[in-house]
């Protein structure tokens, strides 16, 4: 008993402290990662498990009239969650979604909103992202 104890313990003595420390840090890392994953998951659930975003495309060619299309009104209505549309007949309709991206936003701004979901996928969740939109209207002046 005594002999085996000495053989095991004495040669390892100088590095045993480091090994213990590495194990300790590893454990802390695992716990921190588990906590992060848990918090991230809660955040995503609070944001809503089904979310609708709306990105407003800028008008690319200002010289041509977009006949029959709907127009997004421009005076500060993009703030937050509502988007206002004006149809060709002049009626104004309001839509609410989780977030509206006005015409000026960059591809990166869009991705920042999505990147949380990419993290969820990495944490073992199943995520679906749909891109939906009308392929415009009948009368195109081609």
């Amino acid at each position, binding site marked *: 008993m005594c002999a085996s104890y000495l053989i095991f313990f004495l040669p390892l003595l100088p590095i045993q402290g480091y090994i213990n420390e590495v194990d300790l840090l590893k454990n802390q890392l695992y716990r921190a990662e588990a906590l992060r994953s848990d918090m991230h998951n809660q955040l995503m659930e609070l944001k809503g498990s089904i979310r609708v975003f709306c990105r407003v495309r800028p008008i690319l060619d200002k010289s041509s009239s977009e006949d029959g299309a709907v127009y997004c009104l421009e005076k500060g209505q993009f703030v937050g969650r509502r988007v206002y549309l004006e149809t060709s007949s002049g009626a104004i309709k309001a839509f609410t979604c989780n977030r509206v991206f006005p015409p000026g936003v960059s591809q990166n701004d869009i991705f920042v909103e999505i990147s949380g979901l990419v993290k*969820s996928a990495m*944490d073992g969740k199943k*995520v679906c992202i749909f891109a939906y939109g009308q392929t415009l209207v009948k009368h195109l002046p081609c």
Partner: protein
Amino acid sequence: MHICLWADTGKTFTMLGDDGDDAKGVIPRAVEEIFETIHIRESLGLAHHTVKIDMSEIYNEEVRNLSSMASNDNVVKTKTQALGALKEALSKRAVAKTSRNERSSRSHFIFRLSIYSYNEKMEMCEGALNIIDLAGSEAADSDATKEVQAEAKAINKSLLYLGTTIGQIERGAEFINFRNSQLTRELHVKIVKLILI
């Protein structure tokens, strides 16, 4: 005849983007983020990962597999490999050059990354990122050929059923019908969380 650049609402631009760092869309950015995170996690010894990529399109209610990598069950090891596979798949997509818009996609495009991570105890955890670029719904056009009209019909039908299905999920309906169209069938197994753009 000039092409009406604005004939699309920008779905494909948002999802795939153009060349160049600023114009990259959601899919390339997501792929980059995933492989970066994997690199960090693996260098910290947190987990070991396997990533599979799987792409298909639904055109006229027909599912076509676009990922042709015969080797290794579509496993991708690097971001370059993944983006290469994406590029290859995109070149195979059906894009009818109608009088509307050259880039207007006539099929639903499904991009799926499955991420399997194994921790120290070899416990497996499976996550998935599905990105679906839906074909645009459109108003029937009397100028369009029969073929294009049939395409439009199939697209509008599957979008309607997708809407119904998501509505059922949101309401927490007892029975959720996934079987009405190929699109919802394809998504059936994979859907747990739905995010709409």
